[in-house]
């Protein structure tokens, strides 16, 4: 896919930002969607800034907590700040603003990613720029 998001240009990239096993994309209205790829089929959790149909969630003063089937709190999505904060996923916080992408305390700005599986990959250990799509993930692109 081709898009400009969080200050980066993604060209012919299969997954622009991979946060753990979740793809993060932003539509033309800068609304964030979060798609879990660890299952056989992609599961949309956040759809353009709102909890996707069928997803269990809990609103909080600072955003929406996405819950697992057993009500375990997975992560917090703050639409106003464009922040994804792990609660039980063990991942660094990720923030996507109009002109930059922040992962933990690392800012990525003005980068271009072309012809890659993953543009920015966020793992529990940190951040990787560019790379293949990890094995075992569902295909984001239909």
């Amino acid at each position, binding site marked *: *896919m*081709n*898009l400009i998001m969080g200050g980066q240009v993604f060209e*012919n990239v299969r997954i622009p930002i991979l946060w753990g096993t979740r793809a993060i*994309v932003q*539509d*033309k*209205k800068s*609304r964030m*969607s979060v*798609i879990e790829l660890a299952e056989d089929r992609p599961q*949309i959790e956040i*759809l*353009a*800034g*709102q*909890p*996707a*149909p*069928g*997803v*269990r*969630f*809990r*609103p*909080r*003063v*600072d*955003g929406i907590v996405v*819950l697992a089937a057993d*009500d375990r709190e997975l992560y*917090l999505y*703050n639409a106003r*700040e464009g*922040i994804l904060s792990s609660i039980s996923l063990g991942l660094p916080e990720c923030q996507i603003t109009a002109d930059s992408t922040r992962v933990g*305390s690392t800012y990525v700005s003005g980068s271009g990613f072309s012809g890659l599986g993953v543009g920015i990959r966020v793992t529990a250990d940190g951040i990787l720029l560019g790379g293949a799509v990890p094995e075992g993930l569902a295909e*984001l*692109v*239909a």
Partner: protein
Amino acid sequence: MRVILNSDVMHLTGLASRGIPPHIEAFCKDAIESGAKLVLPRTVLLELQRFQSEYAEQRRNELRKASKLMTDYGVAVPIHDVENLVKNVDLIELFGLMGINLEVVDPLLEDYQDAERRASLHLSPQSASAKADEMRDLVIWNVAIRIAERDGKALLVSRDEVHSHDRGADEAAAVGLLRASTFDDALVHLGRASPVGTLAIRLLAPVWETLRQAGLPLPEQLAISRVAEGTFVSEPIGRLSGSFRFSAVGSSGPISAKASIRPYELEGHIEVTLRNIVIAGKPRDPDSLQVVARGDLPSTPPIDERIAALRELVGKKT
């Protein structure tokens, strides 16, 4: 009303200069907007500052190690002053810069003396079987009680068992000290709708009268005093469903239950299941109730346009 904050709800997971958790900032600003004054007992401030010092020292050590590693590999490291790069944070000043004024209240000698007595004799609100003497928590309790007594009302926000247990209920009620273990509960006490409470009310509204007609002694007008454990789902048919625990005060006294509210298979109807119903402190017999009410649950935002926008991005290979 003064809102006394304990360290467990104000816990910062890293250096405050790198950002205060959004939920703390959002709560503080919402509380101030409601007219509340936020109070940190000195005991709480000291504990928060201790964590900040530890976080700062941790970052300094990381810098020192990084610098040494670079030097070991022959990479020239610019001269830098680690102490100056990572400074200790003045929390009161930092919150002040964000428009959040925190009033620091020093414990009085009486607070310490009474805490000492309660800790040593294992008196309420401490557990009689406590293994540790929770002196610090008892000092904060005494500060909260003293402020409530002076002002006629106060709110203590704390998850700590000493502060939230039923043991302290009578003493708190006698001086007008309200207690909340989450920011959401605290917002309800402040007359602000908590996000979970707002959705719970939207779900209860179309079924409230049906529940009353089914014999539950709920108040005539929809009014709930507490909502917890809320879980919500935007159903694929475009309606909101959810489950949550709620409390209300009805004609027979306090009533609480765990509610599950969702669209019924017949369109225009709602299925409501209440479990663990407790009325005036006693389980109802039976303690569960299931009814189908006529009506519609709240609509969720339409998804067609949002799905289309997402499909435009990921719908085809490039």
